């Protein structure tokens, strides 16, 4: 509450004429009064500063000042006039010369903010220099004094009052406008500061929440890594012992026993691959995965993927084909990771394609620009959107398809289009998420073209050579 910038807002007060008035404009207003009425005008603030001063030395004053004693007496009068602080109404201060000064209070919002001094002028009923004038100096020449007096501006007292009232009115308008502008800007400033303070507070709270979430995320990753590791160790034993049983080390198995052991082994392997996926994803999310680049033949990679899924596709009655143009060049990539990307996508395609369907694996050379999304506003597009050679892989199926509104979310870890499909098609919903992370680790892009009920195409674009590190 002691804030100086808001203190005057408590009661909406203004204290100083100086704060509200532009001296130059005030001088112009006074100048126009002078031009209109021929009256000298001075405006003082309550603190006594002279804010405007428009006057000319008048004939009578000039004559008085030309006399030694007269000059001293005139200076005394001027000092008296400057010392007058009128309460509520105009104070009329006479000069020995017969002229008068009107000292008019400037009152705004019940406060005296200053005063206007009008004059000297001769009241219209004064026709001749008074006795005091003639006595002011031994050298006074009554004839010259009289002539000088007649040259002075003459104003009727009532007119002087009206002029003062008019000037007060003009000043009041200036003050009111100034006061309002002053309050508005003070309020504006205070409001901005208050808003800033609130925002800063909110930011601090958000930062705190963000830090907490980051820490939670780190704990989650650590937890996943530890648990996956602890699960793998006994699992490898289970698989290993199942294999040993199958080889007959521990004696022959009956057909039924062999079947059970086979189930234990395959389910164990499935579990192992799931745990491995979890670990991979975890590493990818933590940015710990290393990409080891070498020259890779896209055609060879696709052939390997086809090899992997050939038995399964055959079993399901799905045609699995590779299409790769002869001109498809070698590319720089991590062969293990690239294979993993395509295996995940192809596995996904086979999973969601019914019997009798087909899955195509394609690779081709393209030119594309890998630009940040923030460049989408076109800023620097001529530079940043320059295309570069890339390899585009397409994994196309004619399966169930994906609705448009799901197309982005399917890359989220553990996401499946609907809960039902998890049970129908199996899997943990990690494959696509891992594929996306791996594509991004290759500075590439992945997206989907799909039509519900007609099939899905995953399009992976990877630069032929990775960009130079920034």
């Amino acid at each position: 509450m002691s804030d100086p910038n808001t203190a005057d807002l408590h009661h909406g007060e203004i204290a100083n004429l100086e704060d509200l008035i532009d001296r130059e404009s005030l001088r112009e207003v006074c100048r126009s009064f002078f031009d209109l009425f021929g009256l000298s005008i001075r405006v003082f603030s309550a603190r006594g500063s002279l804010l405007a001063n428009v006057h000319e030395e008048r004939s009578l004053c000039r004559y008085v000042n030309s006399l030694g004693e007269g000059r001293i007496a005139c200076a005394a009068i001027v000092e008296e006039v400057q010392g007058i602080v009128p309460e509520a109404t105009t104070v009329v201060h006479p000069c020995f010369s017969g002229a008068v000064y009107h000292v008019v209070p400037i009152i705004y919002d019940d406060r005296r903010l200053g005063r206007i001094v009008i004059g000297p002028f001769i009241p219209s009923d004064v026709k001749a220099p008074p006795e005091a004038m003639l006595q002011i100096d031994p050298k006074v020449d009554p004839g010259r004094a009289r002539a000088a007096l007649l040259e002075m501006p003459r104003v009727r007292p009532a007119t002087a009052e009206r002029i003062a009232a008019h000037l007060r009115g003009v000043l009041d308008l200036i003050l009111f406008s100034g006061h309002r502008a002053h309050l508005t800007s003070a309020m504006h400033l205070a409001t901005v500061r208050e808003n800033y303070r609130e925002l800063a507070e909110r930011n601090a709270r958000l930062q705190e929440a963000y830090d907490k979430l980051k820490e939670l995320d780190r704990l989650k990753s650590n937890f996943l890594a530890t648990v996956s590791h602890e699960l793998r160790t006994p699992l490898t034993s289970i698989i290993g012992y199942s294999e040993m049983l199958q080889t007959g080390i521990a004696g022959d198995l009956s057909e039924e026993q062999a079947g059970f052991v086979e189930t234990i082994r395959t389910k164990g392997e499935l579990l192992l691959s799931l745990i491995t996926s979890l670990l991979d994803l975890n590493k990818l999310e933590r940015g710990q995965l290393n990409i080891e680049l070498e020259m890779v033949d896209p055609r060879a990679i696709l052939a390997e993927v086809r090899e992997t899924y050939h038995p399964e596709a055959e079993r399901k009655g799905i045609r699995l084909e590779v299409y790769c143009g002869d001109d498809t060049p070698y590319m720089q990539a991590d062969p293990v990771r690239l294979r993993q990307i395509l295996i995940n996508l192809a596995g996904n395609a086979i999973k969601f394609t019914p019997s009798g369907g087909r899955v195509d694996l394609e690779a081709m050379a393209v030119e594309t620009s890998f630009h940040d999304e923030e460049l989408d506003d076109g800023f620097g597009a001529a530079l940043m959107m320059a295309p570069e050679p890339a390899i585009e892989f397409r994994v196309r199926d004619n399966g169930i398809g994906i609705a448009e509104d799901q197309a982005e979310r399917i890359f989220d870890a553990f996401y499946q289009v609907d809960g039902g499909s998890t049970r129908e098609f199996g899997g943990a919903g990690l494959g696509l998420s891992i594929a996306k992370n791996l594509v991004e680790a290759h500075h590439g892009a992945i997206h989907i073209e799909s039509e519900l009920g007609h099939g899905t195409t995953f399009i992976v674009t990877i630069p032929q050579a990775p960009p130079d590190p920034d």
Partner: protein
Amino acid sequence: MQLDFQTRELTVKLVYYGPALSGKTTNLQAIHRLLNPEGRGRLMTLETRDDRTLFFDLLPLSFSTKSGLTVRIKLFTVPGQVIHNSTRKLVLQGADGVAFIADSQTQEVRANQASFKDLRKNLRDNGLDPARMPLVIQYNKRDLPNIRGEEEIMRMAAKGKEPTILATATHGTGVLETFMALLEVTWAHLEREHALDERFGLSHTEVVEDLRKRFARGTEAAGP
């Protein structure tokens, strides 16, 4: 309350609070109209946009008392729109009394309540105790259809301690009653806190009567 010993001035700040478009500015305009011209300051409206007060209205009233103190009463409104909360908070700083202008229309119940909660929060944020803040509630817009019934309002009001007044500020009815009631409760509170009568010979009745007289003259001049 602000007391300036040098100029012997006592400044009291009264704030008209309430939801957007409940009639705060209309109240001030009516008070301004009802006062006789010499005792009232000018009504200042700060930065209006779309007919809505962006910052506040300010109506200064002042008069000298027998004790030699000048009493200055400043009436403020706050901007009702939700987004102007920081302005409301600033205007509420140093308030001595609050008139809460509620909209009588039944569909405005929520808006009234939300604004009142906002008032309580902003008072607290300004270090003022809402329970000790002199308060008057005005149910405005009595001329509209679909309003909460008078009996019901009075039954609710009987459960609280604040004066509750029905008004149609656009016609000027209930406006003075609200203002005078606010002055009464505020002065009673200031008297208790600062012993104004004992210390400065400034009596409750003198202040209230003085203001009442100004309004009386103003009303005569305005005519029916």
